[in-house]
């Protein structure tokens, strides 16, 4: 691509901005600019997404044959474990907060940087250190416990790299804590004059709710993994009954973090969608405050539902009853959000650029993911579906259909701001459609597989389940193509894309008032906010 090209030479940004302010690797690896750190994160999470995705591809190839087409069962177990660990801890949890949040929180509050720029850089180094431990473990033989690390299998029976992965995840947790802390302080203390809490864009509310979960929940995960490592390395009896421990204690501790972690992954995507929908419908979001409070409600209730992962463990049936009730309650704020996003479209002026397609896709898939969650919150049906492919399908609808669609939508929405370049919209729209179709082909058959009784984490399976598995694997191929296309045109656009205006979508929000890409200091002058968020209607700017 470097020499004699027939394409017209692209124009370049002559104005000084955060990208051309300085050159050389030091200017990146020692930067304290939140926007550059966001790009460091973007490159790293993309790297981990490709690694985690490759494991998934190998798994889907393997499962096309009932006896397993590709690898030994031990290897398959390592594949699904590393797929889960890498995707959850190294892609999904940092994806929107650490990439888009890092880039946007200061811009959206009208500040020059986050409250603690050096802590922000530190959090990236911590993340990378944790990632290296995990990669080391993969190379040094892998780990086969499942991303859930259930004891006593993980602590006393597995002979794989449990400690290395536990250390990797333990370390990475601190990067979440620091990012969360940074966001909370920034949102509290650094909002521009006039930017009251209820004038904040909903993305900031989502980041705020997410940060609270990160700061409160992640330490519990760290403690749990520390105890696991203690038992694994020094045989201190905590979880293993053979050593005098309690076999279920680990699950309580683990899910106390890991269920809220689901909301760490999905709340930011909800925030992204709450920005995209009003912009492309040119409408103020419907029920602004309701969406704010539903984010907070989800964050709080999310801490009280962990026991629904344990309905079949033999925990007290009364505990099951309470956890079931609370799990149903947490479904309601999610439903309210879906209705409000949909209502925002009413009497709008809707256009269909790629970010909007991702956002609408998100609503559809999240709705299905949320509704199938009711099957699992309900005690009698959970007994049958727990531990089967139904669970796998359900959480992929939330995590991939929801969180990944939200992340891609956000990347497409803010790409002009981040890079100062536009991407080819037709390709982007095509990719969004392929991702939507491929996703459903991959994961819908898994609902049926689960209902029919196929347990998850099976390296081989009875032949009657083959048809649905082959369908799922075929869908995964389509999904894979859908993910590769954006990787190509987005990279292409960084060099060849047309230059972006400061506000190419005609969106509201302070980030669109500065140039694309923004200067290092974000704003020449700290802006003053005089109106509500999403003031898309002209008359709204005056009154209200």
């Amino acid at each position: 691509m470097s020499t004699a090209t027939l394409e017209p030479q692209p124009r370049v940004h002559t104005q000084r901005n955060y990208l051309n302010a300085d050159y050389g690797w030091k200017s990146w690896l020692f930067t304290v600019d939140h926007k550059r750190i966001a790009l460091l994160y973007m490159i790293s999470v993309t790297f981990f997404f490709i690694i985690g995705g490759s494991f998934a591809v190998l798994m889907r190839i393997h499962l096309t044959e009932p006896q397993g087409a590709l690898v030994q069962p031990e290897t398959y177990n390592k594949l699904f474990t590393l797929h889960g660990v890498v995707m959850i801890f190294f892609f999904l949890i940092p994806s929107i907060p650490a990439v888009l949040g890092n880039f946007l929180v200061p811009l959206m509050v009208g500040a020059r940087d986050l409250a603690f720029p050096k802590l922000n850089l530190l959090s990236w180094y911590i993340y990378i250190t944790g990632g290296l431990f995990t990669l080391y473990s993969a190379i040094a033989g892998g780990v086969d416990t499942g991303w859930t690390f259930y004891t006593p299998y993980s602590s006393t029976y597995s002979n794989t790299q449990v400690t290395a992965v536990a250390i990797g995840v333990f370390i990475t947790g601190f990067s979440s804590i620091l990012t969360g802390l940074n966001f909370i302080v920034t949102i509290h203390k650094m909002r521009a004059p006039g930017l009251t809490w209820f004038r904040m864009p909903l993305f900031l509310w989502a980041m705020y709710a997410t940060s609270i979960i990160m700061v409160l929940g992640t330490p519990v995960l760290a403690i749990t993994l520390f105890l696991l490592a203690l038992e694994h390395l020094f045989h201190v009896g905590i979880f293993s009954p053979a050593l005098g421990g309690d076999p279920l204690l680990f699950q309580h501790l683990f899910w106390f973090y890991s269920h809220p972690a689901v909301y760490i992954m999905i709340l930011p995507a909800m925030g992204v969608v709450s920005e995209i929908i009003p912009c492309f419908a040119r409408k103020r979001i419907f029920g602004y405050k309701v969406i704010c409070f539903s984010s907070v409600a989800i964050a709080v209730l999310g801490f009280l539902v962990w026991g629904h992962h344990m309905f079949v463990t033999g925990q007290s049936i009364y505990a099951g009853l309470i956890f079931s009730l609370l799990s149903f309650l947490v479904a309601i704020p999610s439903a309210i959000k879906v209705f409000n996003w949909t209502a925002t479209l009413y009497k709008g002026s809707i256009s269909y650029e790629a970010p909007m397609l991702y956002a609408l896709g998100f609503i559809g898939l999240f709705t299905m993911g949320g509704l199938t969650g009711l099957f699992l919150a309900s005690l009698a049906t959970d007994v049958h579906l727990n531990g089967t492919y139904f669970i796998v399908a359900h959480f992929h609808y939330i995590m991939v259909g929801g969180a990944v669609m939200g992340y891609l939508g956000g990347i497409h929405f803010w790409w002009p701001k981040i890079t100062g370049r536009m991407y080819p919209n037709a390709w982007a729209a095509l990719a969004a459609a392929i991702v939507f179709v491929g996703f459903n082909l991959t994961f819908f058959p898994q609902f049926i597989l689960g209902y029919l009784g196929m347990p998850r984490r099976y390296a081989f399976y009875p032949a009657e389940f083959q048809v649905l598995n082959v369908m799922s694997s075929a869908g995964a191929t389509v999904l894979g193509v859908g993910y590769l296309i954006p990787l190509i045109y987005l990279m292409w656009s960084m060099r060849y894309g047309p230059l972006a205006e400061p506000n190419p979508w005609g969106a509201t929000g302070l980030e669109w008032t500065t140039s694309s890409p923004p200067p290092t200091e974000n704003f020449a002058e700290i802006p003053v906010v005089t109106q509500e968020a999403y003031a898309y209607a002209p008359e709204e700017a005056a009154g209200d």
Partner: protein
Amino acid sequence: MQSLPFQPEQASTIAKSVDQLYFFLTAVTLFFTALIFSIIFYFMIRYRRRSPDERPKAIEGSFPLEVLWTVIPTLIVAVIFVWGSTLYFRNSEPPRGSMEIFVTGKQWMWKVEHPEGQREINEMHVPLGRPVKLTMTSEDVIHDFFVPAFRVKKDVLPGRYTSLWFQATKVGTFHLFCAQYCGAFHAGMIGSIVVQEPDEYERWLAGGTTGESMEQAGEKVFQQTGCPSCHMADGTGLGPSLLGVYGHPVKLTSGETVTADDAYLRECILQPALRRVFGYKPLMTSFQGQLTEEQLNNVIAYIRALGNTPPPPPKQEVKP
């Protein structure tokens, strides 16, 4: 490859009721998915941007609508909650007079023991139309006993007992899966439940047995381990007599009362110091690691049988 089934076989008394709830949930899911999708598609077409400078009027929101779409989902989930919980509660206790079978999970096989002494691996014969209660434990990691056709599932834990029950309504062979990941050959920890007509089951039970029931095997372990030297039948030993104990309340040194069930007896054998019987000194040593899960099951089966014998007169003289 076979034709695509969309429903697992219904082969237990609870399968149909679980499926009814499942279908209701499916209907709710389809309805709301269709509703949201059609509204979105309708709006997408109806309110598509017709000219680049359209500036539609702002709508703040609507309180009545917010109330409406908070209350309706709340009512729907309330119905599902009550329905799901009622079924779960109804199915959580085995009916009186259920026959018992004992299951031990270990990497990577299911060991099954019938009270009459019949042993099986990765296969479980049960009679049609009789409630069966399983008492389950694991020798190593957490497993999970899952029979899709019966819609039952329960974790099988090391160091404690869990139980589930079912009543088969169809003769045939059904999948038994381990549904909790348990290591390298987790996928191979599968077996079958063979449901037979009662008379056929009786014939199966009579044939090929070791000639020793669980109770008899348990008595042998009880004698060999030296239990009777303290647990004397007439109640004069250093430990309490075990006659008439099983299933009855036992007073503890703490002043509490527990029912002497499988879990309590297991704890007494493995961790005797934890909850001691009122009136006896803490003399018993732990048998942790000395008895296999099968031997434990057998000893408890023996103590269970002793439960039907009337207990000796209460001991008076020893202070706590």
